[in-house]
């Protein structure tokens, strides 16, 4: 079911509780989920830093990743036959924006899980991205509370 999920500022909100930084929740680790299957992901982001970071996060979870820095390259990659279990795609991209790229990727019959990971936060943007075909609209940053359930689902652990 397509949905919009909040960004992950929980650490800061709790850190400002004035209790000296001692938290109730256990520390997060990338061992929260151990993948049983080989999963592949494509990261589409025009910003070098975000692309590197999102790839790093997915690799830490055990996924094999590729990345491109614009929507046109993403569409070409899919058109060439590349298959992915998961695509993370930003909304504002050079050459071809994320909304149109998503539309074209879906039009090619690609049914993989797509997360629209963007700094955009408006309802209009959310609706446009969902209508284009992303399964989940995620306001940056992409946190484990969003990614772990997705990966569990993709890995058949749900």
């Amino acid at each position, binding site marked *: 079911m397509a949905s919009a999920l909040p960004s992950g500022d929980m650490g*800061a909100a709790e850190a400002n509780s004035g209790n000296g930084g001692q938290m109730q929740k256990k520390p997060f680790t990338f061992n929260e989920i151990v993948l049983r299957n080989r999963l592949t992901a494509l990261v589409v982001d025009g910003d070098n830093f975000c692309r590197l970071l999102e790839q790093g996060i997915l690799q830490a979870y055990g996924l094999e990743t590729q990345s491109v820095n614009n929507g046109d390259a993403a569409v070409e990659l899919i058109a060439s036959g590349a298959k992915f279990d998961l695509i993370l795609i930003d909304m504002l991209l050079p050459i071809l924006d994320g909304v149109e790229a998503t539309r074209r990727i879906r039009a090619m019959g690609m049914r993989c899980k797509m997360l629209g990971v963007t700094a955009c936060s408006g309802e209009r943007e959310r609706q446009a991205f969902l209508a284009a075909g992303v399964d989940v609209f995620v306001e940056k940053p992409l946190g484990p509370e969003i990614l772990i359930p997705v990966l569990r689902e993709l890995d058949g652990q749900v």
Partner: protein
Amino acid sequence: MEVVQIQRRLVDYTKSLFMEGFLDGQFLQLQQLQDESNPDFVVEVVSLFFDDSEKLLNELTIALDQPNVDFKKVDGHVHQLKGSSSSIGAQRVKNVCIAFRNFCEVQNIEGCLTCLQQVKQEYYLVKNKLETLFRLEQQIVASGGSIPMIEMGF
């Protein structure tokens, strides 16, 4: 200074950055990505964030100095800075970007200029804080110690 003292200082300093809102939980996730196979990951991505951000701040300064300001261009740069600052956990920078984008939307030049000043201030503050944090980590490693885990969670 003994390594235990430096480790204690690092823990206290890191916690203060969270308490004062300079960093949020996203930064912790970043630190978790660092391991023996990728020991310099955090420093590398943070350095990339610094390079990208300083370019964006220069672009913003130039764009807002034009006789006819292209607010769409300004908004694009701020949007990018919002994305990268939120991804690294630089919460205060991100929050100024949110206000900045609102001023871009209504084409309020004074508001944009004020936000530019604020975002530069917040950026250089967090840059300074992170550089201090990395210096402490380097001191620990150079003294033969290990970087302590901070007791925080998502």
